[in-house]
């Protein structure tokens, strides 16, 4: 039973990774949000299981927190934003999708062999997961780089934090509670500020295309 569960963590890890890839590939913002929601769900589940396996009960709490934030609150917020500002499509990206995917693959490999020695040391039940978490972080980073509009960038940012959370829970079986709380709180505030921003930007430039945000430079 436990072994099954512990294997399932790895499964969830893979799910996260795949979702990260999917997000890079995805142009439609609505779908992006859905994928992000799924990622959040997977993360919450993984946290739950780790909590159960390691018997650290504060992890239940943080799983719940993750669920509330990443699966309920933030997606709703993003939905509203894109409905209000009707930005449905992201225009073409810095590199085209296939190239990005290729870079992504390279990143994953890099992340894995970066984490390989450490994973060996990890006391946690889910050894390999650190590499995957790192890969997720890097992939979301990549996504932030290649996306040309504000919302996808934010989603990339958030999914990066998913990766971090996953690292925190799966690889190290949970940071101290207070820290988790603090992080969650920051994320929440960040999201709110982001929302405010989106509207401010929108009312200034009546578009969320961050190409408008390229005036300040050394000319």
């Amino acid at each position, binding site marked *: 039973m436990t072994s099954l569960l512990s294997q399932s963590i790895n499964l969830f890890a893979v799910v996260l990774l795949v979702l990260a890839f999917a997000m890079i590939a995805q142009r439609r913002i609505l779908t992006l949000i859905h994928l992000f929601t799924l990622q959040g769900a997977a993360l919450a589940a993984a946290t739950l299981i780790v909590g159960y396996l390691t018997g650290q009960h504060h992890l239940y709490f943080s799983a719940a927190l993750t669920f509330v934030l990443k699966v309920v609150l933030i997606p709703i917020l993003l939905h509203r934003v894109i409905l209000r500002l009707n930005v449905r499509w992201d225009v073409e990206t810095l590199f085209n999708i296939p190239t990005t995917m290729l870079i992504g693959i390279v990143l994953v490999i*890099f992340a894995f062999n*970066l984490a390989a020695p450490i994973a060996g040391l990890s006391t946690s039940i889910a050894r390999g997961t650190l590499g995957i978490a790192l890969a997720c972080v890097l992939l979301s*980073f990549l996504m*932030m*780089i290649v996306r*040309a509009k504000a919302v996808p960038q934010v989603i990339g940012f958030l999914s990066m934090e998913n990766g971090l959370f996953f690292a925190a829970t799966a690889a190290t079986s949970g940071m101290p509670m207070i820290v988790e709380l603090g992080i969650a709180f920051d994320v929440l505030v960040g999201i709110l500020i982001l929302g405010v921003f989106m509207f401010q930007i929108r009312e200034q430039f009546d578009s969320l295309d*961050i190409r408008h945000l*390229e005036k*300040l430079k*050394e000319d």
Partner: protein
Amino acid sequence: MLVLDWILIVIAGWLALGVAGIGALRNTAFVARVLFPAGAVLAVALAGFAVAGLLGTPETAVLALGLPDLPFHLRLDGLSAFFLLVIGAIAFGISIFAAGYFRHGEGTPPGLMCLEYHLFLASMALVVLADDAYAFMVMWETMALSSFFLVTANHRVPAIREAGFLYLLIAHIGALGILLCFGVLQANTGDYTFANMRAQSLSPLWASAAFLLATVGFGAKAGILPLHVWLPEAHPAAPSPVSALMSAVMLKTAIYGLLRVSFDLLGAQQWWWGVLLMAVGLATALYGVVFSAVQTDMKRLLAYSSIENIGLLFVGIGLGVLFNAYGMKALSALALTAALYHVLGHAFFKSLLFLATGSVLHATGERSLGKLGGLMRRMPWVAWLSLVGVLASSGLPPFSGFVSEWLLLQSFLFTTGLPDSFLNMLVPVLAAGIALVAALAGYTMVKFFGVIFLGQPREPKLADAHPASPLERAGLVWLGAGCVLLGLFPVQVIGLIDRVTRLLVGGGIADTVRANGWLLLSPSSIDRASYGPLVFLGVVSLAVLLTAVLVRKLYHGRLRRAPAWDCGFPAQTARMQDTAEGFGQPIRQIFEPFFRMRRELPSPFDAKPHYRVTIEDHFWHWLYLPVARLTSLIARGVGRLQQGRIAIYLLYSFVTLMVLLLVVKS
């Protein structure tokens, strides 16, 4: 009570005067009539104490300032005392002059000028007293800063602002060089006192690095090639007392620093250091004198002449290093004596001349030689005194300039004794360069004096030029007297300088000189070489008087005043005299490659013929402009980093992350 304490009291007094100046910010009368004279009194006191220190034993003090482990160490030894003497003696004359000089409307309020002026004096005094790197650098930069504010006293004029900027920039870069030099000298001990630096024995490589850094750093302040460009800009920009102070004293602090580092702090010297100094010095001297010969602005002319003299000083020091590197103590002492004597002499005559230009400037409002002339009849005091300065600076017997030149040439005559066959063949030839420079200096000075004071006024307004105020005259008299006395009593002066050379190279020439009597200056033996200024003056003046009397006795003394004959040329005007450009023409022709010259010649059919020639410094186009261009080029390249695209910024972060991860991985 130690001499050093008295000196510190003097310095404190200067600072107090500065603060008082802030108190009376706009009260010109008070500042000019009370504060500056008081400063002068302190200056002469300082000179006195300096002599005492020169004759006494080294003294040290520690001020409770500076870094925790590094309070300000002060040390009064022969070298610093000698330069304190220079500072005090010159500052006395200049302060008196300044008391009569500063008027309303010089831009900066007089009180502030007073503060900056006395801060400048105090910082210079402390520079030569400093005995650890930190105190030295702090004072050094304070000196640069206060002088910068003095230079830009009249900052409404853009040209003056630019001059000030250039000055401070080069000074700062030089200071960084000195800083790094000390960084080498402290040899990783973390102890920045000079005592510790003396104790360190550096590897030849590090020692050479330190020496080169020092040469660059102090050279930037002294104005050696190619770091001289600020000098002819800053000196004319400043009010005359300030230019006098900078040229006569501040440049010397750079010489002090070079001596301190290369002789005192760096123990063993290498022969090529000396050769380097001599080469640079000779180039500088030649460059400076040639440029000063073609100047048309009297203060620029003097500024370039300062460059020349600094070059000569470097040659002297270089010769000293060379001899010292081969362990020829006495000869090294001879060369250094020549250099130090010139430090003293140059301080006097150059400040004298700069102050004279100041009086002329106030009297006529003109700085361009082309608009002056015939001022000797309007302002006889200034004219006669600056004649003394002119004769001294063109190295003519029996004035101060000649003594140092003579000593320098004498020490060159010994260079055939150098153990290195290559050197003893090459070095004597450099003397030819010295001789040429000296002769050209004479040419320049004749131009300077003749065009300003002799001939007929080139402008009508010169007719109502007013003579200098009594205080100004007093200052000039003091400095002029200095030029004469230094010229007439070399033996006694060398007795003082001897202390310095003993400190630097452990040898001196005073004993030999004294042995040859107080009348004759003879560094080795009468048979070998001797020069008796007093006899010289005596015989010449006796001959002059005798002739005058005899001519009167034997013939009538009839004399008739008439218009100038001029080959009977009927209508002659003041415009027919040689202009400054005209006087410089032969030099322009002979030394053409030195200049970047642009001429505008009028066409034969020109209704209003206009002749203009502009002389530019090659180094602007060879060194400074390229550097500026390169900087802006790099800046443009760097600017590309900041293109405003957030994605790109993220990419930087990403790539950096990757690179670092790879680094730690490998």
